[in-house]
């Protein structure tokens, strides 16, 4: 599955430091292996009814350090299976960020973005240009990520990638020392 390059949707705006315990509590995520079931507990720490309110194609816009804490991949999985199309944040916690690419959930780091977007603004995430277009039409480029990670995300994550290529994207990387 290749993701469409422009994702239009309404934005849920979240604060700084939204951790994975908020995104999906342990006691729910550790009791199922079904992503559809996980999505019923998405954002439970803020709103146990979130799953009833989210609409397909919605987008997340968050403050700094989104997805901190636990390594639980069920956190981006719960977001993805809530049919949220992409997550934009001022910054991401390290493991959550890796997990987004590994499962094919677009994650774009855009410093300052929460000052440009209000709750339920219609915005556009452009996966081709790796940028966000806010309601006033201004374009906000996301921080660059290595090409192999964007490719992985475009192809839908590690399962889809491996099924197609029978290897992992980093196995073909040339490791290069940077002079300084």
């Amino acid at each position, binding site marked *: 599955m290749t993701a469409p390059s422009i994702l239009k949707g309404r934005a849920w705006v979240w604060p700084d430091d939204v951790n994975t315990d908020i995104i999906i509590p342990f006691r729910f995520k550790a009791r199922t292996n079904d992503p559809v079931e996980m999505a019923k507990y998405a954002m439970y720490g803020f709103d146990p009814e979130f799953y009833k309110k989210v609409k397909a194609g919605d987008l997340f816009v968050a403050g700094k350090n989104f997805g901190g804490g636990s390594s639980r991949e069920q956190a981006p999985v719960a977001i993805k299976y809530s049919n949220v199309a992409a997550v934009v944040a001022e910054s991401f916690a390290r493991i959550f960020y890796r997990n987004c690419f590994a499962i094919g959930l677009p994650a774009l780091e855009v410093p300052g973005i929460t000052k440009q977007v209000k709750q339920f603004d219609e915005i556009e995430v452009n996966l081709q240009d790796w940028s966000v277009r806010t309601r006033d039409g201004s374009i906000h480029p996301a921080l660059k990520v*290595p090409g192999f990670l964007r490719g992985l995300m475009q192809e839908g994550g590690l399962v889809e990638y491996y099924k197609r290529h029978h290897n992992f994207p*980093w196995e073909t990387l040339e490791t290069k020392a*940077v002079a300084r």
Partner: protein
Amino acid sequence: MRQDILNDDTLTFAEKIISVRADGAEKVHRPGDITVLPVDLAMAQDSTGPLAIKVFSEMGVPRVWDPSKIHLVIDHSFPAPDEKVANLHHLMREFVKKHGVRLVEGSISHQHLLENHVVPGMVLFGADSHTCQAGAVGAFATGIGSSEMAAVWASGKLWAKVPESIKVNLTGQFKKGVFARDIVSHFIGTVGEDGGNYRSIEWKGPAVKDLSIASRACISNNSMECGCKLSIFEVDASTQEYFRSVNRKSMYEIHSGSKASYKDEYDIDIGKIIPEVAEPGNVDKVKEVGEVEGTPVDQAFIGSSTNGRYEDLVVAAKILKGHKVKTGTRCVITPASKSVFEQAIKNGLAEIFLQSGAVFTNATCGACVGTHLGVLGENEVCISSSPRNYIGRMGSITSKIYLASPATAAASAIEGKIADPRRYL
């Protein structure tokens, strides 16, 4: 080339270990470089392993790369508290039968690996954020998610970006009632919840020699709460003594160079630290105990991979001995591993705990993640030696968690409210 890298005076620990270990490279890597690391040990536990198993099977990989290097640990909810968990545990045991990988039940992964498998210089990826604990003995150890773990099972390799490093210079001597946990809490309060994000923390300075391996493990483990990738204590005489005693050999003993460059440097005088408590909601809302003293608590929890080691239980026992847990307050004590549990029973700590009115459970993550053995109800308040105080972490989303050392938690159990442990030591 390998020896040149090890001797390079300009490299941090992270730069050195990645440069030495990176796949086929043996050349100097600097922060920002993307490398591929061969994996010496891959660990997944019972809340990340089942998803990794599902992903592995969906990928259609016929067999794992090396069963002897793959550890599945049933620790978070052990023994299974309900049918749903039991079914996922069953899935793990079936995977173990099919692929011949290692199975551990009933010890927390990080403590089990430290006691039995970790050696300095190894590359360890774990599907658990607190995997960075093994940095306490100079290993490259960091957390990943379930899909990347499945990729490691398939290929034995994983990509890693070379992190920038932070240096923390520890000086001074512990005052009464202050422990490793207070140092790391103080540090997280200083740098903030994302202050170590993507970074490698090196704990250095003259006070390091006074820290036991268990105390270093507490600090490396809890460093995760500022988002770090690695949290490192270089091998020293104590580390060497520890590995002699357990009869395991280092792969590499790596020391950062004296001219290495750091993104940030911090000085901590341990002698100036007093017992610290993090207020509910965020791990970096760190206060001195006096500022929150007297807050009523429904439960005190002493345990977790951060603070469930033998030395933690010894301090808890010292405080609880001859006292009773306050009526109306529960005190739950959960060791980090089977061996800690056994030691606590053999040396009389269990008896002290039971006489005080505390509950002494088997080794598991348990209450820390709100899965069993001490789940919090609506509006309940807990003081806990576990690593996180996030919304709903230990149960109801209206419950509240204060984080502190085992000593502070034990003193609070006696008084039924947050208490200064120095009165009991």
